[in-house]
């Protein structure tokens, strides 16, 4: 049983979810309310990770954050280390990989909120930020919660991207899916089965808990 890998995946998934909440909410807000003509281009870019094979995405992320790319070189000059084969590198890859899983449910949640409520709030002199915090976000909570759950779950099960940029370092980039794959490859089917069972149990518990909580959210703030 590889508890180290399970713990690493949990940390990666939680960090990814929080970063995606910080990035995804403004992005989803912009996608929902912007009237720019080229908005569809942004929507298409956000949805790309749904279509691209994870290994392709991972390969390009490896090139993009490696020491030969401008971004990778800049990071190296600032921090003194390189992004590939590090937890931070995985975090960058996971945020890109799970972006649509956060942005799309949240944008759908925002779009479902009755626009008249927002306009009423604005007309009463409440700022856009306060309206977002006190009217839009509470009403769109099911969408935000769905986005957070999906991002967490998607990162927990992430394999191809991590395989391409991680380098399989124990405690740093060997996530639970990589560990299970290694155990299968080493013909240790018993250990692979045990780790998979823990992952399955953990994922089910998290999902069941969140859906249970979400029902309470709906009970407190009915949508219709």
């Amino acid at each position, binding site marked *: 049983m590889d508890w180290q890998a399970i713990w690493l995946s949990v940390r990666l998934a939680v960090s990814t979810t929080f970063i995606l909440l910080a990035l995804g909410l403004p992005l989803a807000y912009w996608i929902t309310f912007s009237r720019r003509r080229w908005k569809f281009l942004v929507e298409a870019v956000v949805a790309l990770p749904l279509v691209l094979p994870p290994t392709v995405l991972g390969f390009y992320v490896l090139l993009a954050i490696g020491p*030969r790319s401008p971004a990778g070189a800049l990071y190296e000059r600032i921090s003194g280390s390189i992004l*590939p084969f590090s937890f931070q590198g995985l975090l960058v890859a996971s945020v890109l990989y799970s972006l649509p899983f956060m942005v799309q449910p949240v944008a759908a949640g925002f779009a479902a909120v009755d626009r008249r409520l927002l306009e009423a709030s604005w007309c009463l002199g409440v700022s856009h930020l306060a309206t977002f915090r006190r009217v839009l976000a509470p009403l769109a909570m099911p969408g935000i919660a769905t986005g957070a759950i999906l991002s967490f779950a998607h990162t927990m099960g992430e394999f191809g991207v991590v395989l391409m940029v991680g380098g399989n370092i124990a405690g740093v980039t060997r996530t639970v899916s990589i560990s299970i794959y290694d155990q299968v490859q080493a013909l240790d089917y018993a250990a692979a089965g045990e780790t998979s069972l823990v992952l399955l149990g953990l994922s089910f518990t998290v999902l069941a808990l969140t859906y249970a909580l979400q029902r309470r959210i709906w009970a407190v703030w009915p949508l219709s």
Partner: protein
Amino acid sequence: MNSRGSAAGGRGPGLCGLLSILASMVLCAGCARPPAPAKLQIAAAADLNFAMQEIARDFHQQHPEIDLQPAFGSSGNFYAQIQNHAPFDVFLSADVDYPRKLAAQGLGVADSVFVYALGRIVVWVPAQSALDPATALKAAAVRHVAIANPQHAPYGRAAEAAMRSLGVYDSVEGKLVLGENVAQTLEFVESGAADVGIVALSLAIAPPVKDRGRYWEVPLAAYPKMEQGGMILHDSAAAREFRSWLLAPGGRATLQRYGFYLPGK
């Protein structure tokens, strides 16, 4: 109503016509043309990727009645798939242990296990690197050393053993990054993410890689012999023909040209 009736009437002969065309295609497939070449499905280790293309071409020239269909992947994956009766005719593993284990389980053709090559490893650096491949493992400037995963990749096990016997393992251990297989290990180094890697000679001298880096061959004595072995999974005249061709001078010459030592040499 009327139009629907005529439409249905029109569909009947159309469907019949289609069916009869299909039926005639099925019937004629077996009779009109000369017999199609027998297809031989081969599960081949990833390090054979480049050699196999030439082997398939040469073999087909001498045996036009047999068509080789290689699939490349990790030997461990193939092992698991073959245990579950994957439809391959011949298994060319990177490690003779896998065919031996299959034979011990009563899978494949008994007594068909053969050793066809010895794998060789090299220390590889990209062409633009300032490192000398012969001393790169000891260089202080190196931050990441890529090897294949020793837990399941034969080339990873050889790399680890070689580093131990060269006395560099303790200083390198903290810098190791593990590729899923030897080809991905090369990719880690080629992308610049890792500074140096230990990969298969067969990859380092393969046409697409040859000009992109420099290598130093690790002495054979530094690591245990990497016997690449195979076996016949489904017995047929074509499979036996291929096995003996691979072990005869024609196949051996190609394998040697692509960076493998030959068994019994």
